[in-house]
Every structure is written in C-alpha cells, then in structure tokens.
C-alpha cells in the first residue's frame, strides 16, 4: 500500500553501477537527459534505448521495479500521446470520422514523446535506485561546492536534503502506524466523497504533525549536543574519490552524446 511509494527508494547492490561515484552518476544522468533530448529519429531513439537497457542490465535492477516507477505517470503519458496524435499537422491516417484528425506525423511524434518520457523517468530512477540517499546528497554537495563562492549555502541545503530524505521512510512508517491505529477505532479513509475523505484525514494529520515537530526538535537537540554548527571546517567519514572507472564512465557518457547527435543528424 503506502509502503510501495518508490520515490527516492534505494535498492542496495554491488554492481558496477552501484559502485560508481555518486558525482559520476549525477553527471551521467545529466548527460543522459541531454542525449535523450538530442534524439530526433528512429535510429537515435533506438540507440538511446540500447544505452538504457545496457545500463539497467549492468545495474542488476529488476525491470519490474522500473515499471513500478513509471506506473504513476501513465495518465500523463497517455494524455501526451493523444494530444500529439490529434494535434500534429500532416497526412491523415484514414478518411473516417475522428481518425481523420490523426496524422502519420502525429503518430510518430506521439511515439517519440512517450518513449522520451518513459526513458527519462527510467534513467533518473536508475540513479536513485542504485545510489543511497546519503551518497546522493554528498555527491550533490560536492558538485555544487563552487557555488559557495557566490554565497549559496550549499552545505545547509545538502544537510536539509539528507534530513528530508532520511525521514521519508520514518514518516511513511509513522503514517502507516497512525492510520492503522485510527482504523482500529473504526476510522474510514477509503469511502465517501472528497469532503468526507478530507475530514477523515484529520485524525491522521494531527498526530503526524505533532510527531514530526517532536522529531525535529529532538533531532536539533541531538545535533547541537554533538556540536554541529554548519559546514565550516567539517570533515567527512566517507571521502569521495574519483577512480579510473569513473573517468571511463564519463568518457563513455560523452561518447554517447556524440553518437546521438551524429545519428540524429544523419540517421532516419
């Protein structure tokens, strides 16, 4: 039920993708997204699909988990497909009633758009599935480090992000628990109209907020009593180091972009 939320979920593993430095993976994901937007025709899309499949195979993440990540987006995907099918100008597919509005060009665009969304989501999910939230924020902090020069509070932002990520499972668990407790007293979260359902949320939200504030307070005290005072002069237990496989991976990433641009220009 509520535990099935895949947002930011991490599947521990020991594949080559898991072992890459988080910075490499973030950069590669950006490269991948750029490459995806460069793809314009069948060949380049096929190539990107091949790249994605290779990455998924290397990561040992199950396709089933990726599909579950895409599921919530089905409405958007279908909507995009229909809009593109009907509103792209070109040669109609057939001269019958509504189908007259569907064009061959529209079908092509729809296919590309659907592929693009699905591949975009799968690619980014691959990042969060193979990188622990902590590694992800560490990597992000280091990548954004140069911004400190222009007074962007990078450390504080990264800390907030890791705390938020850290507490997502806790809050979900808490929600589950309170929901069960209220259900045991006959609360009904599943039936009724929107207004009734919103009202039914009160017994859930009040205790949840109270406990979230209590937790925040306790965490702040715990951090202060261990002398936390922001990022200055702070050292880390786990230092990130780029090794040869990271450079190789980045090189491959650049190569992929180059290939896609070439294929998009000269392919069909």
């Amino acid at each position, binding site marked *: 039920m509520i535990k099935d939320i895949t947002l930011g979920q991490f599947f521990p593993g020991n594949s080559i993708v898991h072992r890459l430095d988080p910075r490499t993976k973030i950069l590669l994901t950006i490269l991948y997204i750029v490459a995806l937007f460069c793809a314009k025709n069948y060949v380049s899309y096929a190539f990107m699909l091949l790249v994605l499949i290779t990455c998924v195979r290397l990561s040992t993440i199950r396709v089933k988990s990726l599909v579950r990540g895409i599921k919530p987006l089905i409405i958007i995907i279908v909507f995009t497909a229909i809009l593109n099918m009907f509103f792209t100008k070109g040669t109609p597919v057939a001269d019958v009633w509504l189908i007259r509005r569907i064009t061959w060009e529209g079908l092509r665009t729809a296919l590309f758009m659907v592929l693009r969304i699905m591949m975009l989501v799968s690619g980014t999910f691959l990042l969060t599935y193979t990188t622990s939230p902590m590694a992800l924020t560490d990597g992000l902090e280091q990548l954004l480090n140069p911004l400190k020069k222009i007074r962007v509070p990078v450390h504080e932002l990264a800390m907030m992000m890791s705390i938020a990520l850290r507490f997502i499972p806790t809050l979900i668990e808490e929600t589950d628990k*309170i929901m069960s407790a209220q259900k045991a007293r006959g609360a009904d979260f599943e039936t009724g109209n929107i207004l009734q359902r919103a009202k039914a949320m009160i017994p859930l939200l009040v205790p949840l907020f109270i406990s979230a504030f209590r937790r925040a307070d306790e965490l702040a005290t715990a951090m202060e009593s261990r002398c936390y005072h922001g990022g200055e002069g702070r050292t880390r237990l786990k230092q990130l180091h780029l090794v040869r496989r990271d450079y190789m991976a980045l090189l491959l990433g650049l190569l992929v972009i180059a290939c896609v641009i070439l294929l998009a220009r000269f392919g069909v």
Partner: protein
Amino acid sequence: MDRQLEPIIRTEGLTHVYSAGTPFEQTAIENIDFAVYPGEFMGVIGHTGSGKSTFIQHLNGLIAPTGGKVFFQGQDIHTSKLVTRDTRFHVGLVFQYPEYQLFEESVYKDIAFGPKNMKLTDDEIDERVRWAAALTGLEESLLDKSPFELSGGQKRRVAIAGVIAMRPQVLILDEPTAGLDPQGRDEVMDNIRAFHSQMNATVIMVTHSMEDIARIVDRLVVFHQGHIAMGGTPREVFSRAAELEQMGLTVPKVTKVAMRLRELGMDLPRDIYTTEQLSAALLAGKGAGR
C-alpha cells in the same frame, strides 16, 4: 477453561510475507494456527522481530494475510469489506505507544471517536465515554482538557479508554505498559484486568514483562522467528525455561532462582514461576528433609 467452547478468534495457516517479489522480501509469520476462547486472558511473548506485532494486526483485519485465514466467531473476517470493518469494533486493538494517536481537542472527544464511528446515538456515546473513563481511572475533570496537556501515564489511559469505549469482545494490547513508570504500569494493568473481569471479555496481551505473564494470563504463546514455538499455561511454558532463554527471552526472576537452586542440588519442581510457589516448594522440601 472450558475447551468445548467455540474459539472466539481462530487462525488457520496464517502467513504474511512483506514486500513479496522485491529484494526486501521478508516472511513475518508463517503457517500460524492459533485459537483463543471467550473470556481467556492470553499472553503473547517473543523477541523483537519475531512476528508478534504482525500477527496481532491480522486478528482485527488491519493486515490482510498473504496466506491462510482468520476467523472471528467462526466467520472469515475477509469475506467482505463490511465484515472486516465490523470486526474492528468487536476486536479492539491498542497499539504500542497508543498516546501518539490522540488528536482531538478534548479527552472526551477523543474517547468518543470509536463509538462515534460505530454510529451510536449521542446518549449511548456519552454513556460509553464516561464508563470507559471511569474504568481507566480518568477523573471527570480531565474530560474537558486537551489530551496534550496530560501526563504520559494519563495519555496512555485515554488512548486505552478510546478503544475499550467500543466495548470490544476481544481486546488486544501491544505492550500496554512500555515506557511507563512503575506506578503507571500498575495502574494500566489494573485497568486492563478491570475490563477483563467486568466485561467478561477476551484479552490478548503482547508483553515483555514475564512477571505480568506469570501473574495474570491463563495461557500464552511464544513467538520465535515467525512461528509459534510454544504454547500453554504459564506453568507449562516456564517449565521449559532453558529453551526460552535460548530464544533470547527471559523467564520470571523467581524461575531463575529456582533453576539455580536446582543446579546447586536442591530438589525443586521445574514449574515454579511465582514467589508463592517457590516458598511453598522450599517449605515442603524443608519439611521432608527433617
């Protein structure tokens, strides 16, 4: 206990697997056959992660089993959504740290939440709230206060009152005394016993306190790695003290003393679990030795 009676709750091959089909797959409980009879006071013990919390949440239909069935008064509780929801009013469940579920602006309203969901009339609700408050030793003056102003022990009793106000035939409690001071603990245990005897209800209590088990329960089951490893009267279970300790559970202190005395060569029975039994056995031994 009259075993000719129909069990009030019965499970058959009850199994629950969490996150089936993912790397996080975990079998919480497996193939549990269990029965509790009307009016019984039943204890559930087991190490953390032994599956006891998952198990009790099946008994009022909060979790649907992935295998097997749960029967309340002979009826499968998952035949329809209506039956499941109705079961929750007959099988009251008090979670661990239940004070975290309080949400209303007054104690009165919070206790009334369950009865209100049962669609009772205002008079009935009022009668039940006052009855439940009295039973759990909450004074009338507290009823108008915000539950968040109360002490920890009082909050706990408000939360318990909120469940027993539904007058369930079976009351299940998950470590009702965890985190309370000794006085609060005694008060809560007294409340539970009062409910048990007044309503002639069935009580199932998960606890870590072997002393409570020894003092109060009629029968207990021991959970170990998702299975029921032992079951029976406290006398039967505590006579297998060595096995219990192997499962990482403790036995009542008196049982430990008796075990040690036996190791030292005294001739004592194996089924001692209260101070009275030990002193009686010691006196008998002394009499025989003379």
